[in-house]
């Protein structure tokens, strides 16, 4: 057992403890949290006096392990970009847990990620959720599949229309491909059901199985949409199809915040340390998260790693805080809200009894120069520690 003591604790759910304690069981779960805990004599003591403890960060839109960090094109495994509709592919089968990006995530205080395929295709494939420490991806996984990835806007147009001279060439084309796919998946579902009733042999089609999961609301559709009209199209499509969804990036959300608030949208906002190099993200602004939050949109911040180096996830949240996202909301946008959006709130996202002991030790208050990540723990085990150069 491990006893943390002396630190200021932000559990995110529940009161801040000025000098709190956390007891971690041998199963890697939080056994107790509070001001004073009597731990067994043999418990290992972790003295964190003057430090701050926050829950492990959760990045719900990442390409960790599938984008060739430092390995070049031989490891570019994020986009199966030949065919615009590839719902059968699964990110878990590209993700290399020994790629340096996983360590980068731990350095950034990220303990849980959702890894999604890229955005070359209108229907990109299945994402999954995993912890950031381990060497067998299946043992690290919390949920698979966790979502079906989709993409509107420039990327599918460029990849297919411009580069390969094949559909989609336009935004209209992208929307119609997505719509057609789901209608076909629905018909497939009816055929499958009929066959089940009649007992006739039925050949599973893995392409449609993914869409069927979305139509049955077993997993959400996560749609890449930067420009405001792409965001509106995403909502239109998902309402028509009656499916759960989230808006990925939501870069121009600040221009239509009221509409998004009315629709009770979940927005995955980011990345944001590079300058906009595409037209669709030209109106990237640091105040986006604050405006969306104020309008009632549930905001999760994302790295979209490698597009925002995941080492700097907490800094990205500090920027959102600086530009008006309230402190508590900024904290939740990288912990609790992503856990809720991913449906894993029972395991992670806050420091509560019974949950995984995933936490980050900071040198001072969050979002300050002093508050750098000093150590990252997953299930009670130290998986990264800062050593000054």
């Amino acid at each position, binding site marked *: 057992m491990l006893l943390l003591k002396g630190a200021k604790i932000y559990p995110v759910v529940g009161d801040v403890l000025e000098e709190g304690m956390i007891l971690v069981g041998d199963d890697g779960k939080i056994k107790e949290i509070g001001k004073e805990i009597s731990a067994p004599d043999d418990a290992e003591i972790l003295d964190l006096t003057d430090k701050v403890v926050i829950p492990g960060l959760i990045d719900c839109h990442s390409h960790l392990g599938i984008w060739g*960090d430092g390995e070049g094109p031989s490891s570019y495994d994020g986009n199966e970009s030949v065919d615009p509709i590839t719902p059968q592919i699964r990110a878990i089968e590209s993700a290399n847990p020994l790629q340096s990006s996983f360590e980068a995530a731990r350095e950034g205080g990220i303990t849980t990620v959702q890894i999604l395929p890229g955005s070359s295709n209108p229907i990109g494939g299945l994402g999954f959720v995993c912890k950031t420490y381990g060497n067998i991806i299946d043992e690290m996984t919390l949920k698979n599949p966790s979502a079906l990835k989709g993409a509107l806007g420039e990327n599918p147009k460029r990849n297919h229309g411009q580069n390969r001279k094949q559909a989609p060439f336009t935004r209209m084309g992208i929307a119609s491909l997505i719509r057609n796919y789901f209608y076909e998946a629905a018909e497939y579902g009816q055929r499958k059901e009929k066959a089940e009733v009649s007992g006739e042999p039925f050949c599973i089609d893995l392409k449609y199985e993914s869409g069927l999961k979305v139509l049955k609301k077993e997993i959400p559709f996560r749609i890449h949409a930067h420009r405001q009209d792409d965001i509106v199209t995403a909502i239109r499509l998902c309402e028509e199809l009656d499916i759960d969804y989230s808006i990925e990036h939501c870069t121009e959300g600040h221009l239509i915040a009221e509409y998004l608030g009315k629709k009770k949208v979940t927005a995955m906002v980011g990345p944001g340390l590079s*300058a906009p*190099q595409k*037209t669709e993200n*030209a109106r990237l602004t640091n105040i986006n998260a604050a405006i969306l939050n104020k309008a009632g949109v549930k905001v999760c911040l994302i790295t979209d790693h490698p*597009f925002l180096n995941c080492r700097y996830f907490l*800094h990205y949240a500090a920027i959102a*805080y600086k530009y008006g996202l309230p402190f508590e909301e900024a904290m939740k946008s990288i912990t609790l809200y992503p856990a809720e959006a991913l449906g894993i709130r029972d395991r992670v996202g806050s420091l509560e009894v019974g949950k995984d002991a995933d936490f980050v030790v900071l040198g001072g208050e969050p979002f*300050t120069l002093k508050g750098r990540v000093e150590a990252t723990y997953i299930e009670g085990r130290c998986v990264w520690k800062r050593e000054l150069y």
Partner: protein
Amino acid sequence: MVGIVNARIETVSDGVIDEGQIVISEGKIFDIGTDVNLDYCSQIIDARGRTVTPGIIDAHTHIGLHEQGIGWEGNDVNEAGNPVAPWCRARDGINMLDEAFEMFRQSGITSIGVFPGSANVVGGTGIAIKCCGTIVDEAVIKDPVGMKVALGENPKRVYGEMKKTPSTRMANAAVLRDLLTRTKYYLEAKSRGKNGLKTDRECEAMIPVIKKEIPLIIHCHRHDDIVTAVRICREFDVKFVLEHVTDGYMLVDFLKEQDTHCALGPLLSPHLKVENCNGTFRTPVYFAREGVPFCLITDHPVISGKNIILTAAIAIQWGLSHEDALRAITLEAARHLGIDDRVGSLEKGKDADLVIWSDDPFEFTTFVDITIINGEIVYKR
């Protein structure tokens, strides 16, 4: 005349002045200190509780050449038809109305180095400009500041994919060596008035390099590319500065011996290429400790220029001192570009380029309150 009073002034060249004053006249710093005559000031800015630093300088950007938020139409960074393009000038491609300029001013950036990209082994001349105005020719501080050269992955990828040379590191070096050799001969022939010497626009553009009037500005990430850069420059006895220097922490002793200056970064960028996969804040921390001169850069738009202050702040989190971090984005950046006679520190006689910060410049929640370039307020929160 404009006076700034009650400020905590970080001069960079001469320590910190508490409760200090600065008087600006005709675009220059007229006086600075704790007992400055303010009688002739027509405007007084009270900076109580706030910090004043020199204007921030990002020594390596592609602002205006690779415009933000625009695709192909706004991308003029690489003349990638010939690996040798020394006749290109960054000045001819800079759109001063690139939206990034306003963002830079909001972020306290007052001077910048703008260079052609790194697709070509020899990419053309770079320029140092002020971050204001709509006429590039009026914004110039120094042109050219140097000749851009690239080693490593970029040229060999771009030309290798076209099935052209260079497609290896050996050929990157050979292409550069060939041009320097030809220019040496050309210059000698020209100065001797050789009959029938045809004008060679490549060699003409390289003459200032051979004459040591301007340095080569060399893109090199990997340790072996850094060493190759030094080898070639020594061989031809030319001046040089090094850009990116990602693996620099492996070569501290080697670089200490070189009379050069390194522009480190962009350190916030992901390690998407093999040549920058070792990107780490070790490099600036080691360099500061061992006395290898360096500045920090964003390579905008690779990392948005507005995050240069964040880059320096993260370097502090890794152990760089506050003073070294500020130097790395002001005076050392000016030295890198050879413009430190005009900008980079708050001294009498230098350009009145400065920033008034709401608090400690490196705190994540600090805002730029006022940016001043050439004595004019160009941004106010």
